């Protein structure tokens, strides 16, 4: 594995969340990657879910190729449905930033640009 030095923010509509999580899992990212609830007002229910991750250059290249309609060979070999891949990519909001030193700020910029706000947690610190 290489260096994870590029900041990536991905946002998906709730309707596509299961497919997006399945896609991430098929890529070897594990289950439940889209974990941060978002909505226009910050109130429940979440209309979108987001993630922040440090990624390798290979992921940046894969995302770029996917934007051109190319499905990664690993996903094809794994039998991931091409129609699901197209649906997820078609509704995915993404921001890739090299040299980012403020990942939380990066994440906030991106969801704000999509007209979204964090759905605050229910558990208040006592």
């Amino acid at each position, binding site marked *: 594995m290489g260096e994870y030095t590029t900041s990536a923010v991905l946002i998906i509509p709730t309707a596509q969340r299961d497919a997006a999580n399945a896609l991430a899992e098929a890529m070897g990212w594990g289950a*439940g*990657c889209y*974990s941060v609830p978002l909505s226009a007002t910050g109130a429940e229910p979440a209309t979108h879910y987001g993630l*922040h991750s440090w990624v390798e250059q290979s992921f940046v290249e894969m995302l770029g190729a996917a934007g051109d309609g190319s499905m990664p060979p690993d996903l094809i070999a794994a039998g991931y449905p091409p129609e699901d891949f197209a649906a997820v990519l078609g509704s995915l909001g993404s921001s890739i930033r090299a040299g980012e030193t*403020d990942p939380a700020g990066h*994440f906030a910029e991106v969801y704000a640009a999509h007209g979204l706000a964090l759905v605050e947690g229910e*558990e208040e*610190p*006592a």
Partner: protein
Amino acid sequence: MSILPGVVASMVEGAPPTPTFAISLGTHNRIDPSSISPSVPPWLTASGFTITTNAGGPVVYEYISGAWHVVSGTFPDASGFGTWTQGENTAAITYTNAKTETTFQVAANNLFRSGAPGGAWDFSDPTTLFQDAAGTVPVTGFNQPVGHVLDLSGNGYHLTQSAAASRALFTDTLPNGKPSILFDGVDDLLSVANFDLSSTDKVTVFAGVRKISDATISGVLGTGVSLGGKFHLGAPRIAGVGNVNFGASGLSTFRNARFDGVPAPFSFVVVGGANLLQSQVSIRVNQNAPIFSTGSTGGGTFAGSTTFTVGYSVWPFNGYLTSLVVLGREATSDETASMTAIINQQIGAW
């Protein structure tokens, strides 16, 4: 040249049939391999050896990646890592000019060798870190994700993260350049299920922390903020306010001890303490006087079979951690002094 008597060692586990040798260890210390003469024999890089004393032991050591590690054994005295008396045994080989050094791992081993519940994790030591949740792909350099952290307490509470997007990053970007892991303030966390402190009503938490932002509430670690034997470290506890908070609950009330006036960015060694029976919750930040909360917690013990989270799940932590101990008992003043000094060497708070 100092002759270091008192310990006779015998080789085990495939080590060559070399003569016995002697080393001397002060309380809470280990041998610094770089300080000894002759140099560490190469066969020790992959094998263990046993030290036997008249008073106790044996203690099995292993030399891994430039450090001595205790594999197993009981030390001959109750006060520390082992102090041997001159004249107990003879030795055929002597390491000379040895100086001693205490590591986080050795200190953590001392804290838990009496069987206390809890866990200890050294995020600055890549030999204890893995990139994947299963613990099969080791961290080999900076800017790699951390999906598995070994528990050094012996209690088996290894921290994991199965989602790649939620893994903290092993980094050297602390101001002092020392290694640590960085939580992104969005979705990074590590956790372990079935974390059981139900046998105790006391807990002591040590951590080396650097918070990056006070913009939002930030949960550094804990089992939650609800009732029933939970505890929590927040930095900050209140959005937009530069503070650090340690809280704990008994059966009826969650009590907080809060240290104010420390805006981000801020590096600190924190000692959080809770005694549910005596209804005392405390926080000590760096070398400042501790802050106490003494209202009733309702008593009881800490929770069993709960999930312990580092980075927290509701209020994500934005900052660095070098190391962490959750000790299911009250630490002694000597233990506290030793561990805080060790953690400060990592985080560089003062």
